[in-house]
């Protein structure tokens, strides 16, 4: 009897949960998730002459992601241009992650060590740029590093250089821009981890003869590792799929995957290849997220 009502209540709870979530699910399936399945389908079709696709099955797009056939003799080879773009995307994303970590850890630490009533204000200062339009922030960086920008003007004014250094439209520019744009994504999870960190463990470390560097390396970093992993994923994932920042700071030539995908839907006129590339990007991101979930689960055990 009581068992029956229990399971009855369970069922009612599940039904209400689903019913209330239904509008959100429908909206997300129509406006976000569902179309992803169409992309999978398109990646197995043939490109149309100007745009769109011809409804014929083909593995050509997936083949083209990594390989190409020589236009003269038809021999098989690596798609060097594609590999260069992939490598640039991964390299710049990893570097962005490293730079944001190096700058973000002291910043997060600094905020966490503020008196409790002032922490919210510092966090807010980190958050404002985070919510500010990505385009505006990229534009702001553009103004700083352009040849006539304040960075070059300042360096020339100081007499350190006599001609402007070309930073804009290089990989370095993309790197500076992405580090600038994604830094808050590193600081916030690091702050959350440091905030949970028991400072008395530092006292214990010093008490047991550890130097400051060793307290940092042997005690703080291992314990806040879940925050480090979270911050790294949060920076790495959007860096890898970045579109606006490399588009504006890298110019037309220094493409990352995001720009390369766009190209296939524009001048490239190869929707299936663009679709296949999108799926590759999505797969890499999903793998990174899975790694995060696994590490985070392990972090819980340690805590």
């Amino acid at each position, binding site marked *: 009897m009581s068992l029956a009502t229990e399971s009855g209540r369970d069922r009612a709870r599940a039904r209400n949960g*689903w019913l209330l979530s239904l*509008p959100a699910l429908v909206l*997300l399936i129509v406006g976000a998730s569902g179309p992803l399945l169409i992309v999978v389908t398109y990646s197995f079709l043939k490109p149309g002459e100007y745009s769109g696709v011809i409804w014929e099955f083909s593995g050509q797009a997936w083949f083209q992601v990594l390989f190409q056939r020589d236009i003269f003799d038809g021999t098989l080879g690596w798609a060097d241009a594609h590999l260069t773009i992939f490598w640039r995307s991964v390299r710049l994303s990893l570097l962005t992650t490293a730079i944001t970590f190096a700058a973000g850890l002291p910043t997060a630490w600094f905020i966490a060590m503020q008196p409790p009533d002032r922490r919210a204000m510092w966090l807010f200062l980190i958050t404002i740029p985070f919510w500010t339009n990505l385009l505006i922030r990229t534009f702001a960086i553009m103004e700083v590093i352009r040849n006539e920008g304040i960075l070059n003007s300042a360096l020339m004014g100081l007499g350190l250089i006599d001609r402007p250094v070309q930073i804009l439209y290089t990989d370095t520019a993309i790197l500076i821009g992405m580090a600038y744009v994604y830094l808050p994504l590193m600081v916030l999870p690091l702050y959350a981890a440091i905030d949970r960190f028991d400072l008395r463990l530092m006292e214990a470390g010093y008490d047991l003869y550890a130097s400051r560097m060793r307290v940092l390396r042997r005690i703080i970093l291992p314990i806040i590792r879940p925050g480090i992993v979270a911050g790294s994923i949060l920076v790495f994932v959007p860096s890898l799929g970045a579109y606006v920042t490399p588009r504006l700071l890298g110019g037309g030539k220094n493409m990352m995957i995001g720009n390369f995908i766009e190209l296939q839907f524009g001048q490239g006129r190869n929707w299936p290849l663009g679709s296949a590339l999108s799926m590759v990007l*999505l797969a890499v991101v999903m793998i990174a997220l899975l790694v995060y979930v696994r590490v985070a689960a392990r972090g819980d055990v340690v805590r």
Partner: protein
Amino acid sequence: MAVPDAGTAAADRAGAPARRVARRPGRAFSVTRLPGFGLVAVTVFVLLYAPIATLIVYSFNDAPTISVWGGFSLRWYADAWANQQVKDAALRSLLIASFAAAISTTVATMAALGTTRRGRFPGQTFIYVMINQPLMVPEIVTAVALLIFFAAIKVATGYQGLGYLILAHSAFCVPFAYLPIRARLESMDLSLETAAADLYATPWQTFRRVTLPLMAPGIAAGAMLAFVISLDDVIITEFVKSAGQDTLPTYMLGKLRRAITPEVNAISTALLGLTVLLLTAFFLLTRKRG
């Protein structure tokens, strides 16, 4: 004599009374201080705000190029205001953001009520994953997917209106609206609703008179975030929009690809001001909870 003459040493020290009275406070050992961290943090804050500050300052520059300072002026704001394209884009941005915020907040509120405070139920994880999906999938991938999907619908129905943008924006705003509402709900005291039920309120009355007023700050916060996120979107809008449907960000993107005039600084500054205003409201709303 393995041990040195510690006795005399101690006696010497004891003889001279400790004179270390005033010590410089900077020398004192602090457990939580890590060398260089404070310096890096301050540098980070400066570098974070310097480019934005430059952008704002140059929006008031009278000179037509951004490299020289020609005195204070509001001419670029006037230019932007007089530009019909900018005005249209701004209105379109606000319209889309309003719709997207309203729709996403409504469905997110319902979903939050459905997924919190009722124990676990089968499929809950699926719902979480679906709701947070826009946070996980790279925006460029979603943009491409929507481009393909909507292109097909446009061909099939012939409809070219703003509906596509509103639908897309509403969808990717859902997690941003959902998270603060859920946080608010989870921090709410369940016994208040029990008390209402004990005082003869029907479930609907309890919801209207107790639950909804209590979760209102969360809903307002969620709506504000959704509004800001929609207002700032570039990539999905760029891919989904039909001809002549520029929002402020896509208009700016177009401008930035060509010659840059301080007009863009003015638009950026205005948009920045609006964002900061909304975020401050959000900050105050969520802080009151404590």
